[in-house]
């Protein structure tokens, strides 16, 4: 290669990525840095935002049990949602994968389609289904004899988890589905020919192989649930706050931007740590098996 061509090759990638890089530095990294800065500013009812460097907001979050409770609720709801999607979504993906061509694509569309429908509309649907003590869900559960007295869904964590699980379910199904596609189509036959029964095949052959899919689906669902806004806002109402709805309140109702920025920063840092950490763990755990 000539020296000129070599130089062109060294410069080309930077020339091509420069516009996007400038965009990201200018309108993503700088705003994020400003938000972190903002969390150290002072705020008062009458004086507004004061650009000073103090730890007041962070101290308030650390000491006031209200925030601890709110963050704990945020993560509790996210964990329960994740578990629910995994427990229901993984078997559904497996069942779906065993269906014949036409039914498979129809039901895949039915289950993944909601992904493209506005979250507000889907959550509104749950609000209608829950609808107080004689909502449709309670009526159904009671007439099926599963519960004796109505369960409160609206303005409770239970309702939040159910609606969130519905919103997040397509991600889990897709993730497990992708893992199932990587399976050798003859793998079940191989196990069968060696004398394994259906339960053994699922437990010993299928489960271990789709586990990475379940886990990566779980990471997606967890991080999306922990930062979800629309569903907790509509189902949880004004009292049952999670991190995203609290930050929204501080910004647009109370107007205490520095405190809202601190809540948001904490949410971001916690999520990044959890996601990066669990990704690394999964990769290490499965490196031997899945390259």
């Amino acid at each position, binding site marked *: 290669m000539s020296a000129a061509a070599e130089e062109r090759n060294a410069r080309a990638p930077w020339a091509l990525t420069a516009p996007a890089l400038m965009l990201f530095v200018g309108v993503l990294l700088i705003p994020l840095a400003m938000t972190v800065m903002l969390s150290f500013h002072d705020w008062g009812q009458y004086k507004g935002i004061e650009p000073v460097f103090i730890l007041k907001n962070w101290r308030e979050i650390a000491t006031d049990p209200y925030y601890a409770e709110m963050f704990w609720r945020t993560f509790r709801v996210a964990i329960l949602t994740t578990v629910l999607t995994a427990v229901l979504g993984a078997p559904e993906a497996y069942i779906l994968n065993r269906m014949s061509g036409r039914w498979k694509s129809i039901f895949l569309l039915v289950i993944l389609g909601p992904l493209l429908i506005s979250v507000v509309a889907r959550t509104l649907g749950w609000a209608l289904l829950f609808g107080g003590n004689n909502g449709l869900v309670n009526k159904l559960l009671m007439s099926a004899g599963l519960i004796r007295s109505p369960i409160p869904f609206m303005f409770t964590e239970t309702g939040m988890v159910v609606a969130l699980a519905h919103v997040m379910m397509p991600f889990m199904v897709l993730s497990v589905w992708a893992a199932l596609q990587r399976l050798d189509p003859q793998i079940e036959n191989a196990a069968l020919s*060696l004398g394994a029964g259906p339960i053994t095949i699922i437990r010993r052959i299928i489960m271990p192989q789709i586990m990475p899919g379940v886990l990566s689906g779980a990471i997606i669902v967890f991080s999306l649930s922990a930062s979800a806004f629309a569903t907790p806002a509509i189902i949880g109402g004004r009292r049952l706050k999670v991190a995203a709805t609290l930050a929204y309140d501080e910004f647009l109702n109370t107007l205490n931007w520095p405190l809202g920025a601190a809540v948001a920063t904490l949410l971001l840092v916690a999520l990044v740590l959890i996601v990066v950490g669990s990704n690394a763990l999964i990769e290490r755990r499965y490196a031997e098996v899945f390259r």
Partner: protein
Amino acid sequence: MAYLELDRVAKQFGAQTVVDDFSLAVGKGEFISFLGPSGCGKTTTLQMIAGFLDPTRGAIRLEDKDLTAIHPAKRGLGIVFQSYALFPHMTAAENVAFGLEMRKVTRSERTERVRAALAMVGLAGFEDRHPRRMSGGQQQRVALARALVIKPSVLLLDEPLSNLDAKLREEMQIELRQIQRTIGTTTILVTHDQNEAMSLSDRIVVMSQGKIEQIGTPQETYEKPASAFVSQFLGKTNDFAATIDRTATPARLAAGSWSAPAPAGLSGPVTVSIRPERIGFGDAGLNAKIVTRIFQGNHWLFQCDSECGPAIVIRQNDGERQPAEGEAVRLTWRPQDMSVRGVA
């Protein structure tokens, strides 16, 4: 008495008949190949023996017991899949041990048999390796060990060598044959590779479009193909249009300027098949002109334009002078080297 018997087995998917009227008796310890192009029904037949598919009609019997009534997990057959279908989350040893575990073999016996099976396929020392960290050939060996360790009544091989490169495939063919001879397991191999079928099997079942074309030893199927399909599928061949004239005495068979005493039976228009390596250049015989001459190391390949259409001739590279391109030649062969079929 037949060890494994397929009695007029057929398989239909909807209106489509994939396998039809398939009858075969396999002797104990025999090595049988199902040979045919893709879509000929050979894999479907194998899957019916394995129990992954149920035959639409017909019976499959193993030692006179109805095999189709037995759940695939209880058939005790060893299967090597085209993709190997190894369990990627288990080590080589765990893969091989799986079938023994299902049979509740004690841990100590299991360890011993797994070790022996892996040693037999030349993988001693690879026990703790995961399949994805092994080469294609090694994975193939693990799959073979996994199928053999359960001491299967029949070993079913579904295109086991097709994912290997040419050199490795040849090595594995030899090894497979040796292993099968040593342990004497009745084996059925599905393949589309005629060389593989010939070098491995005792008998070949040539299939086309769901039907059996011919059952015979490799030599029989190669030298006495029962149909045009078989002669075309098993190696290169020359098919010439010929006629048998019974009015002459003695009756004669003539293909262009080549002629010989006619065999008994047929008369009128026929097709004669001659393998390219059985044709020689002589002073009398079919008129032809050399179109191209290709040197291939141990032999020469000639493409000729003859009275009866295009012809291929293969001559050993024995150091003699060979005809040049454009040269006029006469093609000749011994009557016993050709097979004659009536025109369908």
